[in-house]
C-alpha cells in the first residue's frame, strides 16, 4: 500500500484525512485494510461493536470497488480515506471502474445462485452506517462515503 492522491474528496470538505490508503484491487489485501481500520477506530475510542460494524462496512465498500475494477480489467488503486470528527469517523472509498462494469457479483460459480453479493454488500453497508452516499466521479469511477458514530449516543446536555 502507499499514499493515495487524487482530487479533494467531497466528504472531507477541506479537512485533512486522518489516514489515507491506496491499494491495488486484490481481494487478499482486504484483510490488511480491516486491520488498519480496526486500529484507527480503536485509537479513536470507538467501542467494540462500532469497530466491528466499521470493519464490515469498509470491507464491503472496498470489496465492491475491487470487484468492479477487476471486472473492468483495470489495475487502478482503490483509495480509502478515514476522517476523524469529534463524535464519529468518516469513510470514503474511491475507484476508477467505469459505470458499465458495475455489474452484479455472483459468489457462487455455478450460476445457480441468484444472490447478488454486490447489492447485498452495499445493503449491509447501508444498514450499519449513517448517511451512505454513492456518487459517480467525473471521468469514470465512483465514490462511496459514510459516517459511523464513535460510541454510544451521548445523553442530552443537562439544563
Amino acid at each position, binding site marked *: 500500500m502507499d499514499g493515495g492522491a487524487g482530487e479533494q474528496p467531497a466528504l472531507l470538505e477541506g479537512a485533512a484525512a486522518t489516514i489515507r490508503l491506496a491499494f491495488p484491487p486484490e481481494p487478499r489485501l482486504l484483510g490488511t485494510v480491516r486491520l488498519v481500520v480496526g486500529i484507527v477506530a480503536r485509537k479513536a475510542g470507538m467501542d467494540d461493536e462500532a469497530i466491528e460494524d466499521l470493519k464490515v462496512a469498509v470491507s464491503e465498500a472496498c470489496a465492491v470497488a475491487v470487484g468492479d475494477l477487476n471486472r473492468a480489467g483495470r489495475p487502478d488503486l482503490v483509495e480509502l480515506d478515514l476522517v476523524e470528527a469529534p463524535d464519529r469517523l468518516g469513510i470514503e472509498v474511491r475507484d476508477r471502474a467505469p459505470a458499465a462494469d458495475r455489474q452484479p457479483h455472483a*459468489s457462487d460459480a455455478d450460476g445457480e*445462485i441468484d*444472490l447478488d453479493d454486490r447489492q447485498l454488500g452495499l445493503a449491509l453497508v447501508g444498514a450499519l452506517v449513517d448517511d451512505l452516499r454513492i456518487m459517480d466521479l467525473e471521468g469514470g469511477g465512483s465514490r462511496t462515503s459514510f459516517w459511523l458514530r464513535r460510541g454510544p449516543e451521548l445523553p442530552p446536555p443537562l439544563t
Partner: protein
Amino acid sequence: MDLDLNVHKEGDRSVLEVAGEIDVYTAPKLREKLIELVSEGSYDIVVDLEKVDFLDSTGLGVLVGGLKRVRNHDGSLQLVCTQEKILKIFRITGLTKVFPIHGSVAEAVAASEE
C-alpha cells in the same frame, strides 16, 4: 489472513468447522469445501462458525449456495453461531429466517435429525 476448514462426522452428519475470516478472498475455499461435501454424498451438513472472526456478504452468498445444494438432495444445512458480531450480519440481511442457527454443534446435529 487464512481460513481453516475441518470436517468431522457426528453420526451420519458432516460437521464443517470454520476458523478465520470469510471474505471475498477466502470464501471460494469455503464454497469448494461445501461442493466437495455434497459431491461426496453429505447432504446434511452442520457449519460451525464459532471460530469465525469476520463474515461478509460473499461468505453469506456461499452459505446460501451450500443451502441450495443440500436442499436439491432433500438435505439440510444448519449453522452454529453464538457470536453477536456474526449473528448481527445474519439478522441485518434477513438470513436468520433462511438458516437454522444453533448455540452448539450438539443442538444443530439434533435439529438436523428431526
